[in-house]
């Protein structure tokens, strides 16, 4: 009897203490954490240590970057007989690994026949599907509205690439081949150079330049002044040659957002056109030229089969069905 009673009290004790501990855990632990985490995703303040954006003082003016792409001016640089200069400048300035076009120019069809060129950077969506799915908060919005990636946190699950409806995210599949000067670059999420193996990378509107009051590389590189960098807060945009009132510019030129029906709220607007202001005819048959990576693709690897060291990275890529880059020359 005595024995049984002792057993019962121990049981009761364990039961009760576990119950109280569990209740406390349920009430205390996840709730503040959830709140904190959801805070992170909106403001990006969780990345305090690594994100320079978080160093801004509360009183500081917060930007709301956006881009306007005036398709009436874009001729895909075919009249210059060169690859699209926005892409090429971006590649040269960020040492992007082979095949990655952070801003990519697509050739799309016009309703009545003919085609137009469409430069496509990351849309920096306000309701970004990639930010919503990231399991570790490696991709986040900074205070200026940019969607950035913290490459020291990204685990490489590529969920964001599946979520992005614009194909605007790239993966560093291997150790990228880079020119020696890339090693001098000082990495930050605003300037993700050099690229880190096994992480996702994309356009970040050259946030490092915007902070210094400079225009992004693609805007500066564009010879036809197609690209406008703007600030939604100040309602202003510029392509480096002219300054426009953003809202009026968008309104008067029937600007549209890519796949606006998806509700991603892109921060990139397009003004319909086919390069007419640069003197391009819509039935121009000249094709886009492929941009050049001066440093090749990825480091050599043993090819797609365990035998045969002969496959270098380029042929390895094409046999494995690497579509980026090659397709446009066809």
């Amino acid at each position: 009897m005595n024995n049984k009673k002792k057993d019962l009290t121990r049981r009761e004790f364990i039961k009760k203490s576990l119950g109280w501990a569990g209740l406390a855990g349920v009430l205390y632990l996840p709730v503040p954490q959830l709140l904190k985490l959801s805070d992170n995703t909106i403001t990006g303040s969780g990345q305090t240590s690594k994100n320079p954006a978080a160093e801004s003082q509360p009183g500081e003016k917060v930007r709301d970057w956006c881009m306007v792409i005036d398709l009436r001016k874009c001729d895909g640089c075919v009249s210059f007989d060169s690859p699209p200069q926005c892409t090429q400048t971006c590649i040269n300035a960020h040492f992007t690994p082979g095949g990655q076009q952070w801003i990519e120019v697509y050739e799309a069809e016009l309703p009545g026949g003919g085609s137009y060129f469409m430069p496509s950077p990351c849309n920096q969506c306000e309701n970004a599907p990639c930010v919503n799915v990231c399991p570790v908060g490696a991709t986040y919005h900074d205070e200026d509205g940019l969607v950035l990636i913290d490459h020291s946190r990204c685990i490489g699950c590529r969920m964001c690439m599946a979520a992005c409806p614009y194909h605007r995210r790239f993966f560093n599949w291997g150790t990228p081949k880079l020119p020696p000067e890339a090693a001098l670059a000082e990495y930050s999420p605003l300037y993700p150079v050099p690229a880190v193996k096994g992480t996702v990378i994309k356009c970040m509107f050259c946030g490092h330049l915007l902070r210094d009051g400079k225009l992004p590389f693609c805007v500066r590189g564009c010879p036809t002044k197609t690209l406008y960098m703007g600030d939604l807060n100040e309602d202003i945009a510029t392509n480096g040659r002219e300054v426009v009132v953003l809202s009026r510019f968008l309104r008067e030129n029937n600007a549209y957002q890519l796949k606006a029906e998806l509700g991603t709220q892109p921060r990139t607007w397009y003004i319909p056109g086919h390069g007419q202001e640069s003197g391009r005819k819509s039935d121009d048959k000249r094709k886009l030229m492929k941009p050049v990576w001066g440093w090749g693709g990825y480091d050599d690897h043993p090819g797609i089969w365990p035998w045969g060291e002969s496959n270098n990275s380029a042929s390895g890529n094409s046999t494995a069905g690497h579509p980026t880059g090659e397709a446009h020359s066809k």
Partner: protein
Amino acid sequence: MRVAKAENYAQRIEQTSLAPMKKPSTAYYAFVLFLLAIIGWGLYAYITQLKFGLLMTGMRDYVSWGFYIFSFIFWVGASLCGALVSAILRLTHAHWRTPLTRIAELVTVASLINAGLMISVDVGRPDRLLFLFAYGRFQSPLVWDVIGLLTYLLGSFVYLYLPLIPDFALMRDRLKGPATALKLKIYTLLAVGWRGTPEQRQRLDKAISVLTVMIIPIGISMHTVTAFTLSMTLRPGWDTAILAPNFVIGALFSGATLLLVVMGVYRKFCHLEEYITPKHFRYVSYLGIVLLFSYLYFVVVEYLTIMFKLRLEEKELFTLLLIGPAAPWFWTFVATAFVLPAILMLYQRGPTIPRLMLAGVLVNIGMFIKRFVIVVPSLEVPLMPTGFHFFTYSPSWVEISIVTMGFAIFALILTLAAKVLPIMPFVEMIEENELAEHHQTKGDVGKER
């Protein structure tokens, strides 16, 4: 006569259950070595992948998920086997399932280990996997997946272990002679002082019933969140609410049919002919037929609602699937998951067991292909005016080796389990048999059978 047979039954079942634990044959060692060789090759492939990165796979920027992800979905599907057979059938007091429960739970645990493996080899930075816990965002479907997987794995382990306690106790008592001291110590430890007292029995029953009720929603949510990793995106073919229930039914289907295969193999190699009879195969195949038609219904509903409206990107997807480059896979899936198994399971001609095992193999090949059909073509549809329409994905040798390693690990876990665990819950079976005898003597035959 009946009483004598009952005693024999208990002795025989004890013998059969304990026999494999004594003397591993040469063939057994050869098979384990063969599996270890495959696993070793897979490890070599994984080391290559660690060294050169995911560059060694066939995945690229457009098709950024491939063989690993659809193997992961396949294994998660196979894992629902345990929830179905041991939990749902236990809950509905279907007593014929007793000899199958342990096998089903083993399949579940082995499949979940593989699922975890597949998702781990897929990440680009395996060194940062723990970030999922350090920085995990509860808003991400991938974190739901990790939580679901770990919960289900833990639940299945416990659910495998609890009914084993009386068996471990019996082994502790019976194996005193043949077993080594270490083995005996382990069994004693695992038996946690089980003496079969009414109090112990009552507590164990209670724990098992609680787990039985818990494991079903855990298993179903596990597969639901796996579907969510796809259906929370805006991709054609994934962006649909029916994907999650579709995955659950598909998983139950492949789980039940996988059980047909695994129990057939165990029956042959552990000599369980007396306990796992054609009747068991038939009953599982009845479940299989019901699930086949439910799954068919879900697939038709899913595809019909998309195909009727045929939004542009989805039109591309279905061109790809039905008549395009992915068509051979799609129609192979239809043939091996629906047409052939339906014929095999419905027309009961020929020997029951090989016929149903063949159906099980076919369904699982079909369901593996189905996971490919879900994942890859959706990624192959261009979302931007890229000017070209099909990006080929074919897995590289690294991916094939690692996925094959997964199958080898699955087989290895089941093979080793046969040597260290009683493959049927024999204590429970003896008790049920006694109960049946008891009812029979009282003329209460129909109730239990």
